[in-house]
C-alpha cells in the first residue's frame, strides 16, 4: 500500500490542493477588498459563475487561455458593475441584491450552457504549465508547487501586491477609510462612491478570474453550478483574514489541502465518510474561533450604503 504514496502521487495531491486553492484565493482576495471598502459582497458566487462561463466561452472560441481569463474577469466585473450600481450608487440592500445576483447567475449560466454546450460538452486542452527553473526539480515539492499555470504564480504575487497596496499606498488608506468612516474620506476630497465602486469592480474581476481559472484550468470545461459554493467559502476566508491578504492565502491553501486529504485518505483505504473529512476545515476554524475568538475587526460601515450629507 505504501507503494501508492509515491513521490509522484504526493506531488499530485499537493498540486491538486494548489489548483483547488487558487479560485478560493482569488475570490477571497476580491471579497476582502469589497469588505475593506465597506461593501458586503454576497453576490460573489454569481460573479464567479459569470467568470467561469464567460471565461470558458472566451478560451474555447479564441483557443487562448489568457483571452479566456480576460473574458472571465470581464464577466465577473460586469456582474459587479450591476452590484455597484444598485448597492453602491443607489444604496440598495447588499444582501438582497447579492443573493439575487447569485440566484440569477446560477440560472442564467445554466440556461446558456443548456442552449450552447449541453450536447457537445467541449473541453479545453491541458493548460501549459510554467516551469520555474531549479525549484521545479526539487522532489515532491517541485512538481507540486512550481509547475503550475502562470496565473497561479500571478495569484500568489497578487497577495504581495494587495498587501503592499493596503499598507503602503493612498489607495489602501482610501479603501480602509471608505469602510471605517466614509464621511471622513469624502470630506478629504475622495469620492466614496467611486472608491467603493472600484473596490466592487475589482472584486468582480478577481472573482471572475477565479471562476475562469476554475473552469478553464481546474476543470477544463464549464458545467452548470460548477462553483459549488466556492464564492461563499471566499466570503468566509475574507472575513477570517481580518483584512490581511496573506491570511486569505493560508486559508485557501488549508481548504485546498483538506480536499486533497480527502483523496489521500481514500487512496490509503482509510474508511471515513467523505462528509466527515469535508467538515474538517470548518471544524478547525470553528475550534480556533472558540479558543482564540477575539473581537472581529470588521469595518464599522460594512454593509451600510454611503450617502453624502445624510443623517
Amino acid at each position, binding site marked *: 500500500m505504501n507503494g501508492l504514496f509515491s513521490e509522484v502521487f504526493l506531488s499530485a495531491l499537493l498540486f*491538486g490542493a494548489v489548483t483547488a486553492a487558487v479560485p478560493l484565493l482569488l475570490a477571497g482576495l476580491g471579497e476582502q477588498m469589497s469588505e475593506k471598502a465597506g461593501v458586503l459582497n454576497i453576490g460573489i458566487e454569481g460573479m464567479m459563475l459569470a467568470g467561469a462561463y464567460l471565461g470558458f466561452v472566451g478560451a474555447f472560441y479564441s483557443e487562448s487561455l489568457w483571452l479566456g481569463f480576460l473574458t472571465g474577469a470581464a464577466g465577473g466585473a460586469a456582474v459587479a458593475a450591476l452590484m455597484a450600481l444598485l448597492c453602491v450608487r443607489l444604496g440598495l440592500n447588499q444582501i438582497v441584491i447579492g443573493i439575487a445576483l447569485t440566484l440569477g447567475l446560477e440560472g442564467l449560466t445554466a440556461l446558456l450552457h443548456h442552449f450552447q454546450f449541453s450536447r457537445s460538452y467541449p473541453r479545453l486542452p491541458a493548460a501549459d504549465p510554467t516551469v520555474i527553473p531549479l525549484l521545479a526539480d526539487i522532489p515532491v515539492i517541485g512538481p507540486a508547487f512550481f509547475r503550475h499555470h502562470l496565473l497561479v504564480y500571478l495569484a500568489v504575487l497578487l497577495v504581495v501586491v494587495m498587501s503592499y497596496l493596503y499598507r503602503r499606498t493612498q489607495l489602501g488608506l482610501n479603501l480602509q477609510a471608505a469602510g471605517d468612516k466614509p464621511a471622513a474620506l469624502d470630506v478629504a476630497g475622495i469620492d466614496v462612491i467611486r472608491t467603493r465602486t472600484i473596490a466592487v469592480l475589482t472584486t468582480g474581476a478577481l472573482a471572475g478570474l477565479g471562476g475562469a481559472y476554475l473552469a478553464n484550468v481546474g476543470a477544463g470545461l464549464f458545467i452548470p453550478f*460548477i462553483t*459549488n459554493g466556492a464564492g461563499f467559502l471566499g466570503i468566509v476566508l475574507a472575513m477570517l483574514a481580518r483584512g490581511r491578504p496573506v491570511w486569505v492565502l493560508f486559508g485557501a491553501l488549508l481548504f485546498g489541502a483538506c480536499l486533497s486529504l480527502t483523496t489521500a485518505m*481514500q487512496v490509503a*483505504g482509510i474508511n471515513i465518510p467523505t462528509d466527515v473529512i469535508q467538515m474538517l476545515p470548518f471544524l478547525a476554524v470553528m475550534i480556533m474561533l472558540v479558543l482564540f475568538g477575539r473581537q472581529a475587526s470588521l469595518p464599522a460601515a460594512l454593509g451600510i450604503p454611503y450617502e453624502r450629507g445624510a443623517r
Partner: protein
Amino acid sequence: GEVKSIAILTPEEGTDYGWNQQGIDAAKAAGEAAGVEVVVAQGLGYGDVRPTLRELASDGASLLIAHASGYNTAAPEIAKEMNVPVAIVDTPNGLEKGLVADYTLSGHEGAYLAGRLAAKMSRSKTVGVVVSGEPPSWNSQSGAFAQGVKAENPDVKIIYAVIGPAAYSDAAGGKRVTESVIASGADIIFGQGNGSSFGMLQAVETTKAADGGKVYFIDVIGDKSPIDKGFLLSSVVWNIEPVYAAMIADIKNDTFGTKHYAIGLKDNSVELLKTPAIPDDVWSQIEALREDIVSGKIKVEPVYDATAVRALMTSVAQ
C-alpha cells in the same frame, strides 16, 4: 388498462450522456414503439417532486416514471393518492399491484466485464475508480468492476476515490481527484459521476500516465462517443427501453406492479461499449466472458453498500 401517455421525471436535463439522458431517450423510444405519448419533466432537482407528480397525473398520464432514487418516497405516495401507476428505482421491496413497480437497475455484470477489460489493458497494472458520490447503483458497479479486475489479475492495484459526498456536478473536483489517481499510477479510470464525469474525462485527456502513454476512461450508463477525443476505452451502457416497454405492456395486461424489472447482459440491455481503442483479440476474450456470465458460469454478486465496496477496494489494493 389503457395507456395513453406516460411521463418521465428526471432530476437533471436529459443531455448528460448518462443517467438522465438514457432514461429520457428510453422512455421516448418505448413510447414511440407502443404508440403512446411521452411527457418529459427534466431538471427537477432533488427536492420535492410531489407537485410535478400530481400535475402530470392530473394531466392524465397513465404511468409516471420517477427516474431518480430521490423520488422513491414521493412517487408511491402520489400513486396511492391519485391512483396512478408509478415506476420507481432502487426500492426492490416497494411493489404494489397496479400502482408501484420497481426497476432497480444495476449494470454490475457490465461493470464486471469492464473490470476484466481494464485489467487486461492496463500497462501499469494499476487502475482507478473515481466516483462523485456513493449511491447504491454506482456502488454495485464499482464493486463489480473491482471483482472483475481481481478475477482477471489479482496483482492489479485498484485505487478508489470519492470526489465528495454529493459532488455530482463538481467538474473541477472530478478533474483534480482523477489527476491524483493517475499520478498514483493508474492508466485506466473507471469513472461514475454526472457533471463531474466530464471533469474526469478532461483529466484523462490532459494527463499522461506514468509511462508517458495515454490514460483511458471507462464510462457508465451512457455513451459519450459523440464527444470523445480518443480516450474513451469503453462504457457500461444501459439500455432502459426494454424495461419501460415491459412496464407499458404490464399496465395494458393489468400485471403492473407484480414484478421486478432488471437489465443485464442477457438481452443486451447492459452492454460493454466497443470502441476502436479496444484491440480485437481483447474484445473477443471479453465477448467470451460475456457468454460465461449469460450462461451462469460466472456469477457476479452486486454489492450495494458503500462500506462493503470500499472493503473490496482496500483488499484489492493491498
